[in-house]
């Protein structure tokens, strides 16, 4: 029996796949590591076990090792974590050096390995496939996968293996973050209601421009503005194009692809006639002097300077995920409370979408072949999802930083609360939490179940605005292109096309809107289309479609 364990331990070092097949036959506990208790029970190990884990730090936590959370994990699971920390800004570099030099820890906690990295290190046997462990021990992971099937699809790599545990964070208002905000007092000043169509919105902007809503006698009002760097969904195009064609893109968000799925086919929206109509609308606003030209060059700091303009308010409406992007949230001027959201506008052909960002999950917990106690390491990752573990990781100690609700306390969504913050997030002791590191299951109900007595709090405002103005128009999840992991023989070609296209499409959006290229000229539009062809839109769609179909 002992020699068999030795053989298996050797195999573990070389071919993880085979080991798990063998391990499963023998009812676990035979991969050479210490035995673990049955799935879902605590502690995980009978005797205290030391385990090396690696994570990217944050300035909001002072010490991960001597930390109330680390101590709680030991108390609950019997595992003493030895934490290696690296600053998150350059973590990728450090991790690459570690992996290349063969000197790496047993578990990477929050590294967000890309599918390409997962497959690469999986093939080399560095990252262990977790499929069998999930079946055998992963009670919480299974729940996460069942609740979010899209996440499971996203985590199974092309080789059929799962190499990481998902962090699922279903943030309701972020899932419809492409928003437009307007300064409410000005609506009253010009005697208009919240606009519902593109035409009504244009009339509103003209009124902002001409009727001096801030009452200072100077025409200093900016009807519409955005920003292209920094910020959050602050590019101008994304919101308005959704009145013409479903647009999953934003000038400011460099990774946005402007792609959608129609009847199972991946489709680029920027060569459609409807797209041209949308640009024509924005070009019209621009020609009327309703869009601040700086919107196509400025960054979030300059955007905020306009919002917090000393003296009179000058910013009428702006695109952003929340108004804190362009006015100081909780700031002295108090202006942030005066901006309200405008729902997606109905276009001339009745098109009206909220951009929808489904939850795909972040890869967070990866176990390597340097770990001797694979089962224990996996069970620790699964324990991460437990409510009290998660809550202590996210918000600190029970009874000090947060507590359980009393009857009658309501959450952000108006339903009975699931937990109660005792101190503000900024006051959490910096050695008592891990500030979200690792995989969690934050469902919409959990997030909105936070006790919130103040109806003016930002989260409540965003919940209400999103429910009232964006949820009714949300695009269906089936229209969204999921993250795809490409075979290495086409990945480089695809990246090249995508990068070139991303630059060109963004450049042309700005040029058509500002009139630098004439949207009404058929020859210029056709030149634009043929340039798209020349860059290789069709080839890109073909590669993506094949991968999508094979999934």
């Amino acid at each position, binding site marked *: 029996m002992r020699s068999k364990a030795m053989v298996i331990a050797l195999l573990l070092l070389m071919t993880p796949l085979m080991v798990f097949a063998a391990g499963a036959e023998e009812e676990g506990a035979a991969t050479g590591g210490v035995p673990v208790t049955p799935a879902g029970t605590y502690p995980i190990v009978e005797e205290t076990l030391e385990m090396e884990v690696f994570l990217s*730090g*944050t*300035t*909001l936590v*002072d*010490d*991960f090792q001597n930390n109330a959370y680390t101590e709680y994990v030991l108390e609950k699971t019997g595992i003493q974590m030895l934490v*290696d*920390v*690296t*600053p*998150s*800004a*350059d973590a990728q*570099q*450090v991790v690459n*050096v570690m992996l*290349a*030099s063969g*000197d790496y820890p047993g578990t990477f906690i929050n590294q967000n390995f890309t599918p390409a990295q997962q497959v690469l290190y999986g093939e080399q046997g560095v990252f262990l496939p977790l499929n069998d462990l999930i079946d055998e021990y992963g009670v919480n992971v299974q729940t996460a996968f069942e609740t979010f099937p899209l996440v499971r699809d996203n985590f199974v790599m092309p080789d059929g293996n799962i190499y990481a545990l998902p962090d699922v*964070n279903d*943030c309701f*208002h*972020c*899932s419809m*973050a492409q928003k437009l905000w307007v300064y409410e007092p000005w609506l009253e000043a010009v005697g208009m209601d919240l606009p519902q169509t593109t035409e009504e919105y244009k009339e509103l902007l003209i009124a902002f421009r001409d009727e001096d809503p801030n009452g200072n006698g100077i025409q200093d009002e900016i009807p519409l503005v955005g920003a292209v760097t*920094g*910020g*959050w*969904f*602050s590019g101008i195009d994304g919101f308005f194009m959704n009145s013409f064609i479903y647009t999953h893109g*934003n000038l*400011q*968000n*460099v*990774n946005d692809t402007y792609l959608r799925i129609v009847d199972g086919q991946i489709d680029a929206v920027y060569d459609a006639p409807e797209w041209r109509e949308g640009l024509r609308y924005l070009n019209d606003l621009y020609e009327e002097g309703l869009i601040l030209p700086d919107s196509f060059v400025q960054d*979030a*700091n*300059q955007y*905020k*300077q306009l919002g*917090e*303009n*000393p003296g009179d308010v000058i910013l009428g409406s702006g695109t952003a995920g*929340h108004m*804190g992007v362009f006015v*100081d*949230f909780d*700031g002295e*001027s108090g202006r942030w409370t005066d901006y309200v959201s405008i729902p997606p506008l109905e276009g001339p052909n009745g098109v009206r979408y909220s951009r929808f*960002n489904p*939850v795909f999950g972040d890869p967070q917990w990866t176990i390597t072949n340097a770990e001797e106690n694979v089962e224990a390491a996996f069970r620790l990752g699964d324990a991460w999802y437990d409510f009290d573990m998660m809550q202590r990781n996210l918000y600190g100690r029970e009874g000090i930083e947060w507590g359980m609700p009393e009857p009658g306390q309501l959450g952000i969504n108006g339903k009975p609360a699931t937990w109660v913050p005792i101190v*503000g*997030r*900024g006051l959490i002791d910096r050695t008592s939490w891990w*500030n*979200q590191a690792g995989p969690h299951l934050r469902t919409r109900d959990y997030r909105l179940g936070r006790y919130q007595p103040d109806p003016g709090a*930002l*989260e409540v405002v*965003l919940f209400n605005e999103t429910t009232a103005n964006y949820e009714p128009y949300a695009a269906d999840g089936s229209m969204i292109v999921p993250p795809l992991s490409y075979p290495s023989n086409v990945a480089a070609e695809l990246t090249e096309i995508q990068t070139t296209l991303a630059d060109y499409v963004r450049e042309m959006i700005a040029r058509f809107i500002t009139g630098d290229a004439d949207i009404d000229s058929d020859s210029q539009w056709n030149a634009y289309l043929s340039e798209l062809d020349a860059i290789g839109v069709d080839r890109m769609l073909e590669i993506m479609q094949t991968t999508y179909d094979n999934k």
Partner: protein
Amino acid sequence: MANVTTATGQDRWFNVINTTIVTIFFVLVLAPLLYVLAASFSDALAVIQGRVWFWPVDFNIEGYRAVFRHPRIMSGFANSFFYVIVGTVINVTLTVLAAYPLSRKDFVDRNLFMTLFVFTIMFNGGLIPTYLLVKSLGMLDTRAALLFPLAIGAWNVIITRTYFQHTIPNELLEAAQMDGCKDFRFLWSVVLPLSGPIIAVITLFYAVQHWNQFFQALLYLKDEAKYPLQLILREILVENQVSSQMTDMDIDSLLLRQQLRELLKYSLIIVASAPMLILYPFIQKYFVKGIMIGSLKG
């Protein structure tokens, strides 16, 4: 200018143009510094509103308070001073000990050793082999990893050697040897006292290098208690930039990071640059002299 001579017409033109260009560069360099300095003493709202130029608006020192309250910044400060002081002492000692023999004409193999030094300027093992070396030496996650792997800079050895060659006359050595002086005594009692400028220069080079060191620390250190200031500075400024990719980030922690960054940004830059800015004028007078001698005759 200490040695003013009567300027001819051409020289005067040269001076005018020269002064103009240097002034322009001076302003270009000074303006951002002044802005950061003014912003660090201003109210955050005034900075956001863009009302701050070169003079503090709504004077306040909240940013500095926050810097000195932040526990990691203070430990980073202490660590950085440790690395600068201990590291520079090691550097200067080793550099002098390497450069002096190489400057002696009676050291037979000096060309061979010089070639080996120069070789390291052009070629090195690269990132991963160096990492493996540090690991095998057992220095990972120790302060030694920031002190020893870069203990000697070949470039500094060269300028120090050149200085010794051209400022310490052979006659001094002969005279000393006549009196029975051994090499170490000669180095200590004669060479070093005559080499103030070059020692000041390499001290500054090494000290600035240690103060700005961040990549080695990033790579080799895992215990946050050992992090130098630059690593913490970078973490606060870079990590807390609000990224558009955070589609599922909590708004309140997002704002928290943003506020921390806005509050600390300018005061932290000032605090982190101050020690080197203060050190520089004291060494600057040697700086020009020392490096000129090294380069002109080398």
